[in-house]
């Protein structure tokens, strides 16, 4: 998909070097404009939340809640960001979360306790990622179609395994992780995992050859090939990474919900892609940031939270959500262009 108004994009680019001075500052400034505008949107939301619900919104409990709610989809979004940066897309994330969460909570798996659940979730996630990666990198399938097929099959398999039933977790260690006693310095473990995944994702993207190569494959696959990068293998790794993130997210969801269910992760694909794009990742590949994606997730989660605290009706919530997305993006564009 092409992005409209490349001119504006280019304009946003042009400015950076122009304000002269240290190029390091220029780079910073460039990143900043985008990130700042996202932070601005988030700040505006927090203001709205604080004004409409002064008691319940700016409460520690509520901040913990927002962050916890953001954790599961946040981890998925980190993986998705890599995939989109590399010029691909992964529609199967929700289905993979569902499959991993039910596979990891079968009676047989639960016998192996904490480790069994964690291990299964991660391995199932990576297994699905591997299939996606093989189909796309070596089978030459279009990512949209390959991962759509995985979506269908993954959900089917999850239903097959559960037979539609909710699988309760009986392993104490796992359950406890989702409860208040496990908070570390007031931070829920789920949030810690999310933070860790974010940091690792950031390092991976910005400080390692893996990250460079992902950007290169997305920005110009032919150039990457000519530079000696094994483009296919890189693509395979990227879907594997997305699968891994889904596996971790599935584990978090198991902890959060104390159960595994085949309806888990419903429409995560849309949420994760939307968060990444709002965060500044180009759907056509070649550019994106982890920080932006995470801010995108937080923006969406905060919106939902404010709606619920204000007891809005479902219909109003949906209508307002669309309007807020439009407003946020238009404001963001305006800020970015004015710099």
């Amino acid at each position, binding site marked *: 998909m092409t992005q409209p108004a490349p001119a504006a994009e280019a304009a946003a680019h042009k400015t950076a070097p122009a304000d002269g001075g240290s190029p390091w500052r220029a780079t910073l400034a460039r990143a900043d404009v985008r990130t700042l505008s996202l932070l601005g949107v988030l700040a505006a939301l927090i203001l709205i939340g604080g004004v409409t*619900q002064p*008691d*319940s919104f700016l*409460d520690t*409990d*509520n901040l913990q*809640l927002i962050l*916890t*709610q953001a954790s599961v989809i946040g981890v998925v979004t980190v993986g998705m960001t890599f995939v989109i940066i590399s010029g691909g897309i992964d529609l199967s994330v929700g289905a993979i979360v569902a499959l991993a969460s039910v596979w990891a909570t079968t009676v047989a798996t639960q016998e192996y306790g904490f480790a069994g659940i964690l291990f299964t979730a991660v391995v199932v996630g990576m297994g699905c990622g591997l299939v996606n990666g093989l189909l796309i990198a070596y089978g030459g399938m279009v990512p949209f179609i390959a991962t759509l097929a995985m979506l269908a099959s993954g959900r089917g398999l999850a*239903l097959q395994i559960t*037979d*539609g*039933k*909710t699988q*309760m977790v009986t392993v104490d260690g796992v359950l406890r992780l*989702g*409860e*208040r006693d496990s908070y570390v310095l007031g931070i829920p473990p789920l949030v810690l995992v999310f933070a860790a995944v974010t940091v690792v994702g950031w390092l991976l993207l910005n400080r390692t050859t893996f990250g460079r190569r992902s950007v290169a494959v997305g920005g110009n696959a032919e150039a990457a090939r000519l530079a000696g990068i094994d483009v296919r293998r890189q693509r395979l790794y990227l879907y594997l990474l997305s699968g891994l993130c889904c596996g971790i997210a599935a584990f978090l*969801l198991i902890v*959060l*919900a*104390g*159960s595994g*269910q*085949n*309806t*888990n*992760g*419903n429409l995560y694909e849309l949420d994760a892609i939307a968060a990444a794009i709002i965060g500044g990742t180009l759907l056509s590949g070649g550019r994106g940031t982890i920080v932006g994606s995470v801010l995108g997730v937080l923006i969406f989660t905060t919106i*939902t*939270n404010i709606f*619920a*605290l*204000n*007891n809005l*009706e*479902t*219909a109003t919530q949906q209508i307002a959500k669309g309007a807020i997305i439009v407003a946020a993006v238009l404001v963001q564009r305006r800020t970015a262009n004015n710099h």
Partner: protein
Amino acid sequence: TSNEPKDEGSDDKEQQVADDKPGKKVTIGFAGPQADHGWLNAINDQAKKRAEKYSDVTLEATEGSNDTAAQIGQVETLINKKVDVLVVLPADGKALTQVGLKAMKAGIPVVNLDRVFATPQAYRCWIGGDNYGMGLSAGHYIGEKLKDKKNARVVELAGLDNLELTKQRSKGFDDALKNYSNIEKVARQAADFTVESGQSKMSQLLQAQKNFDALWNHDDDQGVGALRAIKQAGRDDFLMVGGAGALSAFQAIEADNSVLKATVLYPPTMAASAIDLARALGQSKGVSGMAEFEIPSFVTCYSAVVDKDNVDQYMSTGFK
């Protein structure tokens, strides 16, 4: 346009009553919504188990879609296959009316399960639950429990809001609460029948309402998530009433160690009854226990409230 039962058999002087003995072979077509949810899954299970019980029944089950157009296609497939009787649980009752009419016109009697068609012409027999009544039962139960409390506050965790049944449940609940002037409903949020959404919406409700006295949750599946959220928030200062009748809910009520004190039934066993009715229709027989020759055209299942006192009695009907 014939709403009459088939001619065969109606000549008999004495109407036969369907029983467990094998009779005329009947092919029953069964179409339901996507069984990705505990209660719907239980519906499928009940139907299949009951059909297996009869050696004279063949079940053609096209399983599940939540999309109106797709489900219409599935019912039409069954009509084209010329099954003897149809059992249809529509994703949306009104939207499948046309296809119900079509089946009836084609001479296939339709047993309409739960979500009702817009016109009785579209089914020979309807059996289902009472969503409004479910809300009423929940409201009255909570009302009675809180009737001595001043300024009592109640919270509702509704199901999928774009289904009509959710609105009916809420309406019943609100109407029942009107009888209790001391009770105010302070918040209502809708989850979507999944554990994940139940956990998420409930934790936000708990955050929004720092104190309330009772919670009605429309669905025990999403209740698993809601209970989890309540545990995580460390709250136990209110009473919770569930909906539908899942085994896990019965167990929790029996154990009496959580806020869940009762659940309002919406029995999936109605699917088994639907199969019985369909078989009887196919064999042109009546049903036992009734004086009438003919099979009734409308059967509403009662939404009983199950609490600690009667949970033993219902335990076996709980679905997983």
